Structures are given as structure tokens and as C-alpha cells.
């Protein structure tokens, strides 16, 4: 099952990630990837990654493994973690940051693991791209049978020595902005304590885990 999120290997990855992050923070941002590379990156995700998730001919376990591979490959937890924590990132202690990044990755994987079936029957087509200050916004049209296509914009950034998707904008709604608003709200309501958010994330991850176990 997907409890790999809690294995020592996963935690180690988290620690290493945090270490990489500290190094990254100390360095100026790497030079921007070319737009073409970014478009190719998204093309790979939508043409190879996502179809293999919804391929009914593959066993469920294999598809779940594929999901984890895809998340690891496309999602930079450190970068996204900083974006979604926003100004609270600056206030967080090192321990809090490390724990937050661990939980965030578990949360994301748990979130998508139980729901990737929803992607079945969707058709994703790349329609163009814009460049913004070292980021590339790759526009795609996601269509389902019967429904009018939705615009999904993938924000691709060079993070360290690789490309990563750092946000998705669905019909103008940014996942990062939404998440940041939620996380900020939980922290504020918890008296400005980042621990409040960590507790809440732990609760959700745990609930997902039990849901899957049952």
C-alpha cells in the first residue's frame, strides 16, 4: 500500500530534501530553464505519466507505484513547501520546516493516491506557453467527454539542477495560492503557531492512511 510515506526511506528522503533545501537557500537561484525544455517536461508528464496512471490494464499496485514515481519526478516538495507556507516559512524553525516538508509530501501523495482514478477519460493537450521571470507557464486544455475543456496551466521552474512543476492553475485558480491561504488560516487560527498546521496535516495524513487501510 501507499504507506511508504512513513517508511524510514521516506523520512530519509525528507531529511535529504531539507538538507538540499538549506543548500539551495544559500545559493542564488539557478539560471532559468529554457521554455522548450519546460514544455517538453510537461509533455512528458501529460503524454506518458498521466496515461500510465489511468491505464486500466495495469494492476492497481503498479499504477500506485507509477503515481509515486510521477510525484517524485515532477513535484519539488521543498520549493512548493516554501511557496505554500509563504511568509510563515521565514518564521519557522529548522525542525518545523523539516517536519512540514515531510508532512507536505505525505499529504500530497495521500491526496492523489486515492483519487487518481478521477483522471480517467481525460484528454490533455498542450496549447501554448508563456515565460515569466525564469518560470514557464505551460498551458494545457484538459477535456473530458461531454464537458467543455478546462484550462490548466502548469508552472515549471528550474529547481536546483532539475525541472519541477511548482504550481497548477486550474481555470485561473492556483493550487499554491489556495493552499497558502488554507495553511495561513490554520496557522493564524492556531495563534500563529506553525505547530497548529503540522498537527492538522498529521491528522489528515493519518485519516487518509486509515481510509486506505479499511
Amino acid at each position, binding site marked *: 500500500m501507499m504507506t511508504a510515506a512513513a517508511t524510514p526511506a521516506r523520512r530519509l528522503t525528507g531529511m535529504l530534501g531539507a538538507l538540499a533545501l538549506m543548500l539551495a537557500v544559500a545559493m542564488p537561484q539557478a539560471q532559468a530553464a529554457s521554455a522548450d525544455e519546460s514544455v517538453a517536461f510537461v509533455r512528458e508528464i501529460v503524454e506518458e505519466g498521466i496515461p500510465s496512471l489511468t491505464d486500466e490494464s495495469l494492476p492497481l499496485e503498479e499504477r500506485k507505484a507509477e503515481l509515486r514515481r510521477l510525484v517524485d519526478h515532477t513535484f519539488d516538495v521543498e520549493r512548493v513547501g516554501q511557496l505554500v507556507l509563504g511568509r510563515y516559512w521565514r518564521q519557522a524553525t529548522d525542525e518545523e520546516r523539516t517536519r512540514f516538508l515531510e508532512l507536505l509530501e505525505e499529504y500530497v501523495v495521500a491526496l492523489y493516491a486515492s483519487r487518481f482514478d478521477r483522471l480517467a477519460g481525460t484528454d490533455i493537450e498542450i496549447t501554448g506557453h508563456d515565460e515569466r*521571470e525564469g518560470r514557464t507557464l505551460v498551458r494545457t486544455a484538459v477535456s473530458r467527454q461531454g464537458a467543455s475543456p478546462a484550462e490548466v496551466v502548469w508552472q515549471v521552474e528550474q529547481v536546483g539542477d532539475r525541472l519541477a512543476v511548482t504550481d497548477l492553475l486550474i481555470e485561473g485558480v492556483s493550487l499554491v495560492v489556495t493552499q497558502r491561504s488554507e495553511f495561513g488560516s490554520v496557522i493564524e487560527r492556531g495563534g500563529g503557531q506553525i505547530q497548529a498546521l503540522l498537527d492538522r496535516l498529521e491528522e489528515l495524513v493519518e485519516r487518509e492512511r486509515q481510509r486506505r487501510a479499511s
Partner: protein
Amino acid sequence: MITRIGHAVSAAPGSPLARLGRTAAVGAIVAALGACTTLPDDGEKLASGGFYFDVADAATPGEPHDPIEGVNRAIFSFNLFLDDILIRPVTVVYRAVVPDPAKQGIHNFLVNLDMPVTAVNALLQGKPERAGAALGRFVTNTVAGIGGIVDVAAAAGAEPFREDFGQTLAVYGAGPGPYLVLPVLGPSNVRDTTGRVVDIFLDPFSLAAFYSRDMRNFGYARAVTGGIDARHQIFDVFDDLRETSVDFYAALRSLYNQRREAEIRDGAPVNQEMDYFRDDPFREMDGEADENPTQPPPVTTAVPGAVKPVASLGWRGWDAKAPSMMLGEYSLAGAPSSASSLTEAADDSLVAVDYFEPFYEERGDDDLALGTTADSSEGTSPSPSLLDAPERAALGGAPAAEVQVAGIPTARQAYRLSSE
């Protein structure tokens, strides 16, 4: 391209973005002087001389101005309760009983009914081609699509869209105002609630309900069916989000605000520079940080010919002195057609905009103290003021540019801020 001022305040201090934001925020404050008595219980607060200003306000996508969050959350809980006991169960039955083509037909029919009011609002927004498209859709689908049940127009490549009076107000320059959760109807804000009411009078079908009993019954049926269809449309997404969100209330609030912003832009891409990366810690660590207050950000003179719209003023609250402001913020919506709004110079410095010069005058020289609270609420910001001292000194008091919203000279003038 509507970008708001308020949210930019929390950009990593010292980055060009933050400078832009801070300068702009001062503009918002200046404009709001004396006008705002709102006491927000979250977000950055600026307090001076007994006045409170919410700078991280309103207009930020995802960081909405929510001064009555307590009340909103209570209504939200009630709505969820109502959803649990009534709306969701009814929708479940609807989904199970009604065949898919029928559900699609009902949806198409409802969307088609909205086309006339969309056309009216498109006209009011000065978008005749959009109004024509809406009207064309309505006629096509009503005639060829059996009263709107079949979406013939979409099959021909004309996707449905919606313009309502809330969007019209936004195009006129009104900001969202405080976030509101309406009983049963859900997320809204002062502007959009106003828009909803006005739309009743702009929509021929709901207008007809005033004159005919049959139309009144039709109106009720439309409302109920519309509610069930809306719940049906978001069924999975809503349930997923409720289950997995860290804070469902905040998630919906953010989604609503972002979605409305996107609708107001008619789907045009957002100018992300202003709002999106304002909280990006990387930016702060990029070496352009604010540890360097001695080096003044360059301030340039506004060149009216070279302006490009970059920002709008946020909600400035409730004002007893100016009841006409109650509709919401007076924003400088940099609509694509507008010749100028705020001036963004090549180096990202920005002139502040003053809509309400008298308030500014009233406040005298206190304005520059306003930054203190906002910045200190960031916790780690060393910057004592929204404007750096040299930046302040460099600002003059002269009017810099004529301000237009959607081509109409709505606001008066953009001003350079004065330290006096």
C-alpha cells in the same frame, strides 16, 4: 489585467516586488485615509491615529479581506449542515434518478436562461462583441436547441460564458469588499452580493416574475433546479475538497476569490508578478533583500505616455463620510483598454494613486507612520516603514498621471506620495 495593491504588501521585503507593493500599499493607505473604520481581525493591520487600515486586504487572490470571519464561519457551518441534511441527499437522488442526457439538458437549459442577463452585463461593461456573442448563443440555442436544452452553440465552438453585475461592478472599478458567506447561497462578497440583487432586475426572466404568477413559479423552479444542478456539477470536487482540505472554509474562500478574479478578467491570464510570488521566501533570500535600507530604491518620474496598468486600490472599508463608497473598494482596475492607471517605471518603482485627495490632506504627515504595524506583523521584517526614508524623501506631491478605468477617467489623479 487586474492586479491588486493590498496583497503585494507581504512580498518579500526589499525585492522589487515588495517595493512595488509597499509603494502601492502606501497609495492605498493614503487613499483610504480617514475613510476606513474597518477593524479586521486578521491580515496585516495598519493603525494610526485611531484609524485602522487593512492592507493585506480584499483583493488578494486567495488572501481575502474577511473582517467578519466569525460570522461567516458560523453561516458556513450552517450551510454545510444544510448540505448534509438536504442539498446533498437531494443531489444524490438527482444524480441517481435522472439519466445523464437529461441532466445535461437541464444544465444547458439553465445556462441558456442566463444568457440575456449576461448580454446585458457585457453591454454595461462596454463589451458589445461579448454581448452579441451571448445574445447569439441565446437565440441559437433557444431556437435550434429546443428552448436551450441542446447546446448547439457549444457544438459550433462557442463556449458558454457568464457576465453578472458583480463583474460589471468590478469592471467599473469596484473591488470585492469584505468576504461574505450567504446563507444557502454560499461564498460571496459585498460587491457580488450587490451584483446578485441588481441582476434580478437586469434579468428578463426574473423581472417577469414580478408581473406574472406563472413566471414567479418558473423563477422558483429555476432557482431550485439551478441549486441542484450547481451542486451536481461540483459534486466530486466538493466532497474531495471537504475531506482533504486543511481548512475547508479558507479553501472555498480562496477558490471563490480566485475564480471571481478570473471571471472578471474573462479568463485572461493573471499578472502573477504582483500577487503570486509576494510571499516567496526565495525572493527574499536572493540577495536583493531589505537589509539595505540605505540604498534608496530608484524613484522615477511618471511618464504618462509610458504607463502600464499594474495595480488597483483595495477595499477601504465602510465610511460614514462617504456612503457612496459602500459598494466596495474603488479600485484602479487596469482593464486592458485603459490607457493608464498606476505607473510602473522600468525599475519597478511605482507612483501611488490618490483617489481621495481630501482624506490624504486630512491625514497630514501621519501617513508614513502607517507602515509600521504592517511590517512588524511580518515578524522578521527589519523595515520600519512601508517606504524607505530616501524613498519618502524622493517622492514629491505633484500629480503624475490621469487615471482611467476601462477607458473612463474614473479616478482623479495619481500622485506621488509626499512625506509632508
